[in-house]
């Protein structure tokens, strides 16, 4: 069953397509992701909260969705824009058609769009607000709606998606094939993770290096965290602008230097704020699985998974205390830094992948080594 659907952008551009799944209307910041695989992980990544995602790869839904590849409990994005959504799911691991998975969460899908034209528009004019609807097919009305939702800049979405209750995580990464051998170290460490919208694969990777993780709400104080006697503290990824997270940054300041700290994505930005730096909004962000990042310590290049609309201004970091460790080779933006004196490091990209290449998994090992060194 397909029905008419529209995508309207705040600058007045309108794309006509077909709706897939259950008719709905949702608004958000429209961003594009260039990954060739891993739509389920994208759907369920809390960092996409508040965003409508355009997938540049045209065939989506081909392999359905499954329980193992979820990055959170439910789809987090506001809407999905694709060229062609598959009517069937063909994969041994599939447990549900992908459109059903999104429809259950009320997430609209629009297909049949010239997604490349849309992406080029976003590339030229920057990520912008938009509405997908198959309930209201009046373009002008939708354009107005797009203009009324809040801008991404300045929004604290992380606090909203953070867990309300503390919880424990001990599940490792499951093998995707009987031929795959995944090593899971013996449980030896306790990590406390600040949840700004944490992806489950981070927790699985932490289990892989031998850590049991206690996930705590974004606003947890340093004292409360330290009282849990962690071997290390993790600062998670998450949606929205890092700028409003000053209080959370302050909390984390109290942890740095006490135990090893590792941050990813929004966590990297919050650690930058904690170090006194500034962040800024990128024109259309980095969302994909193919970004080259050079590790400045080794000179090696990693192909990385990325998903961020904001970045840290490297010039605002205190160079006496902070060493820049990772640089994006496409646009020279900062991708990672570490403290010169404390056991603290972080990266802007996603070493836990899901989706994306596993080149950067070594960072979890480095976290383990830091924790081991502190014992």
């Amino acid at each position, binding site marked *: 069953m397909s029905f008419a659907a529209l995508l309207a952008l705040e600058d007045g551009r309108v*794309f006509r397509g077909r709706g897939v799944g259950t008719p709905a209307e949702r608004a958000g910041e429209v961003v*594009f992701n*260039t*990954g*060739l*695989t*891993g739509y*389920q*992980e994208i759907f369920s990544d809390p960092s996409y909260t508040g965003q409508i995602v355009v997938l*540049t*790869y*045209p*065939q989506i839904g*081909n*392999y359905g969705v*499954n329980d*193992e*590849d979820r990055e959170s409990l439910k789809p987090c994005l506001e809407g999905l824009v694709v*060229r*062609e959504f*598959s*009517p*069937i799911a*063909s*994969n*041994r*691991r599939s447990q549900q058609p992908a459109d059903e998975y999104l429809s259950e969460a009320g997430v609209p899908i629009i297909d*049949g769009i*010239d*997604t*490349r*034209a849309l*992406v*080029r528009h976003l*590339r030229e004019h920057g990520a912008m607000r938009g509405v997908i609807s198959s309930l209201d097919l009046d373009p002008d009305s939708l354009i107005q709606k797009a203009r009324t939702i809040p801008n991404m800049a300045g929004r604290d979405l992380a606090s909203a998606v953070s867990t309300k209750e503390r919880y424990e995580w001990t599940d490792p990464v499951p093998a*995707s*094939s*009987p*031929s*795959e*051998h995944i090593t899971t170290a013996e449980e030896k460490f306790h990590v406390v993770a600040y949840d700004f919208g944490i992806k489950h694969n981070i927790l699985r990777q932490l289990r892989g290096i031998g850590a049991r993780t206690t996930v705590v709400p974004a606003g947890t104080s340093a004292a409360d965290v330290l009282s849990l006697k962690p071997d290390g503290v993790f600062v998670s990824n998450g949606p929205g602008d890092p700028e409003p997270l000053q209080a959370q940054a302050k909390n984390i300041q109290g942890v740095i230097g006490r135990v090893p700290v590792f941050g990813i994505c929004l966590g990297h930005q919050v650690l930058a704020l904690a170090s006194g730096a500034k962040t800024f909004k990128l024109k259309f962000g980095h969302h*994909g*699985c*193919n*970004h*080259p990042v*050079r590790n400045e310590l080794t*000179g*090696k*290049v990693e*192909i990385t998974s990325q998903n961020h609309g904001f970045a840290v201004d490297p010039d605002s970091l205190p160079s006496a205390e902070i060493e820049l460790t990772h640089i994006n*080779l*496409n646009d020279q933006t900062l991708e990672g830094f570490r403290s010169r004196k404390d056991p603290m490091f972080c990266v802007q990209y996603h070493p836990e*992948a*899901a*989706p*994306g*290449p*596993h080149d950067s998994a070594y960072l979890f090992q480095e976290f383990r080594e830091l924790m081991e060194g502190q014992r």
Partner: protein
Amino acid sequence: MPKRTDIHKIMIIGSGPIVIGQACEFDYSGTQACKALRDEGYEVVLVNSNPATIMTDPELAEQTYVEPLTVEYLREIIEKERPDALLSTVGGQTGLNASLALADAGILEKFGVEMIGANRDAINKAEDRQQFKAAMTKIGLDTPKSLLVTDLEAGLEFSDEIGYPTILRPSFTLGGSGGGIAYNREEMVELLRIALEISPVHEVLVEESVLGWKEYEMEVLRDVADNCIIICSIENFDPMGVHTGDSITVAPAQTLTDREYQFMRDASLACLREIGVDTGGSNVQFAIDPKTGRQIIIEMNPRVSRSSALASKATGFPIAKIAAKLAVGMRLDEIANDITKKTPACFEPSIDYVVVKVPKWQFEKFPGAEPVLGIQMKSIGEVMAIGSTFKHALWKAIRSLETGRKPGTDVFDPDLVRSRLITPTPERLSYLRYALAQGMTVEEAHDLTKIDPWFLEQLREAIDFQGTLGDDTLETVSDENLRQAKRYGFSDDRLSRLWGVTEAAVREKRKEAGINAVYKRVDTCAAEFESFTPYLYSVYEDECEAEPTERKKVMILGSGPNRIGQGIEFDYCCCHASYALQEMDYESIMVNCNPETVSTDYDTADRLYFEPLTLENVLNIVETEKPDGVIVQFGGQTPLNLSLPLKANGVPIVGTDPESIDLAEDRDRFGRLMEQLDIPQPPGGMATSVEGALEVAQDLGYPVLVRPSYVLGGRAMVICYSAAMIESYMREAVAYSSQDRPILIDRYLENATEVDVDALCDGEDVLIAGIMEHIEEAGIHSGDSSCVLPAMTIGEEQLQTIRDYTVKAAKALNVVGLMNVQYAISADGKVYVIEVNPRASRTVPYVSKATGFPVAKIAVQLMMGRKLADMPELPKGILVPHKVCVKSPVFPFNKFPGVDPILGPEMRSTGEVMGVGETFGEAFSKAQLSAGNPLPDDGALFMSIGAEQKDEAVEIAKKFAAMGFELFGTRGTAERMRAAGLDAKVVFKVNEGRPNVVDLIKDGKVSLIINTPAGASAFEDERAIRRAAAAQVIPCISMLTAGRAAADGIAAKRDQAIQVMSLQELHQG
């Protein structure tokens, strides 16, 4: 790490002649490597025996050797050139094997040549199945259960244990030659015996069957700093069991979750590291059990491959070019991405379209071969299409194949459906569409084919939609449905047949509705960054990115998929057209759909449209680009077939007028023109029925040459010696014939010498580029005949006649550009014209390499209005090669067991080689060596010669006798030899009794055959002799000219050291 400064001169070994499994893709990779290394300031020494390649253009290397790719010759070149390094990885399996052989022989070490790209250990580890399996097991990767055997018993024991079907893979063979699937014990005995034989090391891997599993390939690059990237993943539409070269393949992978894909990526990188490919590209193949998810690694190629060429074209990431730079120590992050300019080559391409490759088979050329696809590659060529979705790309690819069949006109046998789906054949996709249209479910189709349901569902959707459209008419169809049809990939032609209207009517309706093709760019990054390279494909979406320029521009129509008779030679011409246009400051626009080629490298033309060569697609491009001219005479028959309709649509064709091209193909009008010009043709006639054909043949007298009109490569051409042969031919051929496409019947000139002429004409003056003398008997297709430049035995009088006729014909046809003429000189010295083709021919690159003049480029200058008189650098009248150059064909018979390896008027060779020498003998000997039929140093000669040539034959026999050859002859021939005092033994002809000459050949008692047949019974004898000779790999010569050359060549081989000469030296004279 900057590039190495300790090496300066690098040798590259090409892949030799085009054969099944090794085609233009290695011209593409070798050409890219040459260009990349020279851009970095290195000197390049190139060796390749194939003159039809762009890579052997003298401008592409400091020194270019068209010489045999054997250790002896390569050693000689190394000793002469003293390269610092040898790049082993861009010349296919042939280049890799040759490099390895040089290393094994200690030659690289002796001359201080370093192997770069992949080293010897890595090659051995990847190629040796046992070592490979051990290495993969060591790093924890799953492999099929297997055992390497060197004898039958061990193989049988193991296959009994793992169960049937069982896969056989002989070690070190090309394109899976000699491999097979044994479904039972009996078949196992038969196949294993052959496989053991074919493997040069007599070693075969007996392996657990993974038939029906999902099949994937990963294209990987690694630099010296261990940075590794995946360029592309490829998923095969046809599951395991069909060679990947024979599979429809899709990029990127469609049905893998990220977890599965990343597991495969991790495995690919681990494999590369373990095998030890320090720098460069590799291809890793995997199979996944769709039920359990078990993922096994099948093999890896430590070099660039057919798939890497496909991946390069599919993503816009030039693998061979980058691999060459990595081989000299550069790092991926030091190399810029050509397309975005601002980002580095160290990334993984993302694509926002779907790419489908479909192979092209030509089983019809090999009667007797079972058209079944298996683990040994059989396809001759391939097409690629880029579409907005899988459906769109698949239908575009099917259109690109030029099957000659009109869409929707296939006839299916409902009783065969199940078997056609179960057993993979070239027809499987057609039957699949038919079955789905008849209501077969996706589940059932999957059960029969094992093709992934996702692909089948795509087919079903398109077929269902076609059903919906069928309820409409051109008048009633909604704009929305029409747009959807175009987005699904339906051609105007297809729709016109559905609605019973003309293609033009559909086009018009579409345009009225504003439904036009737009063009998107292949940019490596899914539009994340701006693209500076106009590499375009059509879609029916909203936004067009073609951005045509305001420059003066000319469009070149390419030659489409490789096929017998239309291959790399035409791609060479198209590339040269682009180079010539650029030199003349025109913008060049290439249109082609063959991913193997140099022409579809985005570096070759200013703008590249990767599109099917159909009227609809070409007109759409013309409307977007508005070119000042379109070149149709360089791409073989494909663009010629479009030339009249294009002209009718107002498209400006440059060069010879399409009407002239048409005239030359029109038997009647051409015949009248030749009469007017007083140029004799062999007597002939036309027929559209069996009765008509018999009548014509009767009038002409047997033997006659019979062929359909409008074909290239001698498709379905035979010599008929009797009415019965005519009848059987016509029964098959009537399907092809019609009033406007009749069957042509000519008197066949026995014992004639055939001659090919290439000429340039500006409409006023003519320059003959080459008069090539065939050194096979007349009646063997010119593409299958060895030939020599300059002509060796043709008298001055005949040469003058040929020159005169050529000039007259060129002027009469108003040729502007290239023309090819075929002549036959009868035994009594009369010159007949067989055919005139006012277009580029297969021999253009050979003539260019032999003479040192870029014939195709000159032709383009003429087409753009320059005159021969304004080109003082050119000789007047005729180009003369400085040395002797022999071109010899290469045949694919080893891929088609059971096929009669005899030659005839139907072309069957896939490729060619060239031998260059001071003498005819030396050049012939080299060409034979390169073609894989080396002349013997000693042994026994068998001769069977017609009466009128026996004196000449005796002279040749004397030369062989002097070299210690034992002599055998048929009765008449042996008697004449004896009469001349030679010790010759008599052997029975085949029809005389036994033991006869064939028994002698089969016993291995003969090392060379000279057999010049005449007449129907000799014709039968000849077939039997050819067949036996081919089986025993014994050179079989059918012209005394070649016999003498062989004698001289053998003498030269025995008496003098090997000589090598670069084209640069050759052209200096």
